C-alpha cells in the first residue's frame, strides 16, 4: 500500500479530483502514484471496503459510490448550475477547455463588447443579489467552478486560472445526455 493513501483519500472524499495537469506539485505526485496500475488496483480494493469507488477518467481520478448517494433533485440542481456556467465560459471563449488559462479581468473586459456574455451574466439569479458589480459577480462564478475543482488558481500574482483535466468530466456529462432527434429539431439555431 502506498504511503500516499491517506492523502489521496483526503482529497478524493471531498469530491475533488486528482488531475494530471494540476499546477500543484503535490497533486502531480498523487496523480503519478495513482497512474501505476498496481497501486490503482490496490487502492481500488482498499477503498471499496469503505464504500468508495476509485475511478479513473480522462487524465483525472475521482471517487464515486456504489449506491445512490444523493437525491436526484440535488444532482439535477448541480448539473443545471454547471450547464449555465459552462455556457457562460464558452460564450466568453469557445476554446475554453482543458489547459485554457484566463483571468477574471479578461472576462470583465469582454463584457463591454459582448452583449451576449453580459445578458448571460445577468441571468445568474443567485449571483446577482445585493447589486454586486460585474467583477464581483464574475469572481463568484469562478469560485463555483473552483470549488468543484474544475479550475484552479495558477498564479496569485496575475490572478490566472487554469482549466484542469477534470473539466473532461463536465464535458462527458454534457455529451452523454441524449436529446431525442425530434426534440433536437425543434430547437432553433
Amino acid at each position, binding site marked *: 500500500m502506498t504511503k500516499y493513501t491517506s492523502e489521496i483519500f483526503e482529497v478524493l472524499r471531498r469530491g475533488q479530483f486528482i488531475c494530471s495537469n494540476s499546477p500543484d506539485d503535490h497533486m502531480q505526485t498523487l496523480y503519478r502514484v495513482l497512474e501505476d496500475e498496481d497501486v490503482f488496483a490496490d487502492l481500488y480494493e482498499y477503498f471499496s471496503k469503505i464504500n468508495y469507488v476509485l475511478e479513473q477518467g480522462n487524465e483525472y481520478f*475521482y471517487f464515486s459510490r456504489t449506491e445512490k448517494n444523493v437525491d436526484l433533485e440535488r*444532482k439535477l440542481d*448541480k448539473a443545471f448550475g454547471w450547464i449555465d456556467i459552462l455556457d457562460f465560459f*464558452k460564450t466568453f471563449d469557445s476554446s475554453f477547455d482543458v489547459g485554457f488559462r484566463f483571468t477574471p479581468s479578461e472576462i470583465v473586459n469582454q463584457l463591454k463588447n459582448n452583449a451576449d456574455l453580459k445578458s448571460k451574466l445577468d441571468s445568474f439569479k443567485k449571483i446577482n443579489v445585493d447589486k454586486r458589480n460585474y467583477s464581483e459577480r464574475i469572481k463568484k462564478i469562478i469560485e463555483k467552478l473552483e470549488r468543484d475543482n474544475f479550475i484552479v488558481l495558477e498564479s496569485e500574482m496575475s490572478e490566472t486560472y487554469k482549466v484542469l483535466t477534470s473539466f473532461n468530466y463536465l464535458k462527458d456529462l454534457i455529451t452523454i445526455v441524449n436529446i431525442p432527434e425530434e426534440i433536437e429539431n425543434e430547437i432553433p439555431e
Partner: protein
Amino acid sequence: MNTFNDIKELISSLKREEKLISEMFGKRKSLDYKYSYALELVDFDEDRINFLIERSVVRENGGLLEMDDQYLEFFEQVLDVNEEINLSYIDENIRNIEGNIDYFLNENNENRKQGYLKFIKKTFRKIGVITLRSVVDLRRNIENTFKNEPNYKNKQLKLENLDEKRNLVKNLIKQTLDLINEEQHTFFKTSLDEELNRIIIDLKYQLGECAHNLIEIEKQIINYLNQIKHHGRFLERLRKLKYLKDHFTIGSETDIKQVLATRNQVIFERRAGEPLNLSLDFLREEEKAFEAIKRVATKHLNRKLFKPILADIISAELLEDNIEEEVMVNLEELRNHFLPTSDNLFNFILNYDFQKKVDFDERVTIFCQIVSIYELDLVIENTYQMMNGVEYAIVYPK
C-alpha cells in the same frame, strides 16, 4: 510603364526604400496602409514614392498604398511566409519536361540536344525545390489555420481545402515519379548524363521525404478536423441543453435524470463537517496536547466569567411554623348525639352546647347542613314551625 533597366538598379532602389518596403511587407495583412505613413518613412519626399509607383513596386489607390502582387509574392516565397500554395508550377513543369524530352529524343544535333537536356535538368531541380516548399508551406498553413482562425466554420472549410491541396501534391509527386520511372524510360536510359542521374537521385530523395511529410500532414489534418468536429458538436449540444434547461423541459425531454441517477460521484454530495472527539488518553499523556491546552487556555483568560445573579437569603422567621387554631363544628358528632334522642332536629341544635358561642343564624346553617348531608338517617315531616322569622321543617331521627 517604366521598368528597371537592370538588376543593379532594381536592387539598389529596393535597398534605398528598405524601410518603407519592409514596413509595408510587415503590414501586408492589414488592408489600409496610408500614403501619409509612407511619406514619413521616405523623409517626406513624394518623388521617392512616385518612383516606386512608376515602376510598379507599389500601387496607390485612394490615399492607400499597397505592394504590387509580383513583389509581394516574390518576397513571400523567398522568405517562406507565403500562405497561398500554388501547385500549378509543378504541373506546368512536368508538362515542360515531357515536351523537352520529346524534343531531345527527336533532335539529332548534339548542341541543341544539350540545350534541351539542360532545360530538363533545371526543371527537375525546380520541381524538387517547389514540391518540398509546398509541403512545408502546407504544414505551416495547417497549423496556423487550426490555431488562429477564430471562425469555426471557416476553420473547418480552410482545413478541408488544405487537405485537398495535400492530395494534389501527392498526385503530383506520383506523376513526377511515374514520369521518371515508367513513361520516359527510354530517355533516361539513353541520355547517359552523369549530372542528370545525380539530379534524379536527389529529386527522388526529396520526393520521398515529401511523401513522408504528407503522410504526417494527413494524420495531422484528420486529427484537427476531428477535434473541430468534436468541439463543434460539443458546443452545439451544450447550447441545446441550455435551451431546454431555460425552457424547463430538460427533465422531461432528455434522459438527464436517468444519466444522473446512475452517477453517484462524491462531487454531488454535500460536504459535511466531521467533528471528531479528541482521544482522552492523548489529552492526558501527550506533552503536545498539554502545550495545546495551555495555549488555548491563555485565550480564555480574559473571557468574562458568567456570574448568575443571586437572590437574598430567605429570613429564618419566614421558615418557622405558625399555628393557627379554629374551632369547627363536628357535624358527624352532632348527628351521633342527635340520633338516640326523640327531640326534633331544629330544637336539638338550638339547645346544643357547642362549647363556644354559636348564634341563631349559625345554628340555622348547621341545621341545613345536617339535613342535606345525613338525609338518609332522618325523617323529614310535612309539618313546619316558625321561630325568629325562620320557617323550618320538623325533622326526627329514623
